[in-house]
């Protein structure tokens, strides 16, 4: 038992994958083995979006207590709208649309960081208030109208290779790249150092503000990219398509073994946690649990997972 706990302590992400597997197993036991494969396909394709924005949120949370990006949902809405409008349903404009959605994200990120740095507003307040502004921009930009994605873009976002969504493969590669950035680059190490102790990091010569700036830019850019992909995947943008990603991103970061207090991050755990969260809802839906029970159980299971994953070690 102790050995198990120690192993989990070293690799907190194992827990989220174990949780995802357990929930999947519980579901297919109920359906007597029916639909297990399709369930994984669905879980992979929806977890992809959570992972893309979750990784951005992870970097933000890693920079220390109080750092969180609450503007993700409205950035998704805005960037989805911008991308669909620029693509205008034409295959030839897909790349422009993708660049534009990342650009929209970067603009939001720069605005967030300006609020935090220049006006010295705490990040929670800064990103919350900017999310209101961004949502208003999104509303007046698209007036709530839905625009369909170009056919090739829709095909790409929904394509599968023998049951594995292409987008998920891209997101796995993306996660690997981000893990390398976190562990092996100066920026990644700086982010971890800032999260552990800003003052010490600063005294040790870490360029604190540069790292924080990159972090907020990245989080918003990923949200922007996610907005375009989500719009492609679900057949058009919508103002409320980002709403569920506010709590989901924070939940996957924490369940995935990243410390809420900052300074300790974990990329693979985000994949595990995103799959876990999706399969958990699937399981409760399959069991036919009523909405009340479903919400209570989701809450309790998330609390249990967080306690197991991160509760043992307070930040040093």
């Amino acid at each position, binding site marked *: 038992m102790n050995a198990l706990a120690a192993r989990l302590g070293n690799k907190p992400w194992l827990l989220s994958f174990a949780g995802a597997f357990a929930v999947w197993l519980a579901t297919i036991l109920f359906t007597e083995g029916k639909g297990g494969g399709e*369930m994984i396909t*669905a879980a992979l394709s929806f977890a992809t979006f959570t992972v893309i924005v979750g990784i951005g949120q992870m970097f933000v949370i890693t920079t220390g207590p109080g750092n969180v990006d609450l503007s993700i949902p409205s950035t998704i809405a805005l960037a989805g709208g911008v991308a669909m409008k620029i693509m205008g349903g034409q295959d030839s404009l897909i790349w422009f649309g993708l660049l534009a959605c990342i650009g929209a994200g970067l603009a939001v990120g720069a605005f967030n960081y300006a609020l935090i740095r220049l006006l010295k507003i705490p990040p929670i307040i800064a990103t919350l208030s900017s999310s209101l502004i961004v949502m208003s921009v999104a509303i007046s930009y698209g007036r709530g109208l839905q625009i369909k994605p170009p056919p090739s873009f829709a095909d790409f976002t929904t394509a599968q290779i023998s049951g594995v969504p292409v987008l998920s493969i891209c997101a796995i590669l993306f996660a690997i790249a981000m893990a390398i950035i976190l562990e092996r680059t100066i920026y990644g190490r700086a982010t971890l150092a800032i999260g552990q102790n800003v003052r010490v990091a600063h005294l040790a010569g870490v360029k604190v503000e540069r790292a924080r700036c990159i972090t907020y830019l990245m989080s918003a850019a990923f949200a922007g990219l996610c907005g375009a992909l989500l719009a492609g995947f679900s057949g058009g943008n*919508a103002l409320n398509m980002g709403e569920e990603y506010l709590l989901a991103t924070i939940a996957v970061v924490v369940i995935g073994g990243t410390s809420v207090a900052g300074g300790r991050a974990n990329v693979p755990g985000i994949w595990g946690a995103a799959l876990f969260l999706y399969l958990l809802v*699937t399981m409760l*839906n399959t069991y036919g649990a009523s909405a009340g029970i479903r919400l209570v159980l989701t809450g309790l299971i998330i609390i249990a997972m967080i306690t197991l994953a991160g509760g043992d070690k307070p930040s040093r």
Partner: protein
Amino acid sequence: MQGRGKLIGIIAVIVIAVAAVFGYLQFQKSQEGAAGKKIALSNNYAGNSWRQSMLKSWDKVTKKAVADGVVAEATAFTTSENQVTEQAAQIQNLILQGYDAIVLNAASPDALNGAVKEACDAGIVVVSFDGIVTEPCAWRIAVDFAKMGEVQLDYLNEKMPNGGNLLEIRGLAGVFVDDEIHKGIEAGVKKYSQFKVVGSVHGDWTQTVAQKAVAGVLPSLPEVAAVVTQGGDGYGAAQAFKAASRPTPLIIMGNRQDELAWWKEQKDASGYETMSVSIAPGVSTLAFWVAQQILDGKEVPKDMIVPFLRIDQANLESSLANTEQGGVANVEYTLEDAQKVIAAAK
């Protein structure tokens, strides 16, 4: 002594004259009826296509009404966070700003009652619609949501006399509207026992959420004959069935343009048949005319019912043509429509 008496006399005459003129003006104003009155729209949410259409319809109809001199002003106010406290504060502001009527789409059926009562006590007419309030002093233009669930089963019974398995997509858990539509669907399933609900998920009236929830539960479900919905979720369900390579069931739609466009595509390709039902976002304009009628001194019952906007196989093309790309099928109501609804409620 005498001089002072004279002065007092003059002042008294002036005061009486001013009061008389003012009183006459007031009298004239009340004679004018609704013209010269100010109406405000208090709206709790703007973040989806339905609400955007609702605001646009309000804008279109009231602008014309103001230009025609039917009312003096009709401004729309929307809260940013869909919070009860925020909307209560907004209503209090509207009271202070001296509006004669507040047309209200409320964030909560009962939590705003205090603010609504304050408005009534200040002599302001409050007309709630869509999201109605229970405060007795306010008027209510309610949607018969349970009926909206039931008509879906009535239609299915006609289309599929042999019945089959149903997948139910519900709205946002814990919201009154979701419970009501669900009750209607439950009642329908009880009435037509050949149907069986084999799965139920919450789609939050959002295409992406519905798609996600349906994709998750689909692998564990037997063959689904039809999907009963609450609006805003039909296209997401269709996408999920397609992604899972399952045969497309009969999906009841909710009047969104993407849903209608998809239906049209299927209809042209394979003769796909379904129906679509929802409330036109233009119901805000119905509420506007009702408020105008009340201000005009007409007798209006406190509880009225909004008509559904139903689209069937026959009028699909014309409805789709009249619906803005990415919007919601809509009708704007006229004064005559409002008078009909008022008469029906009497």
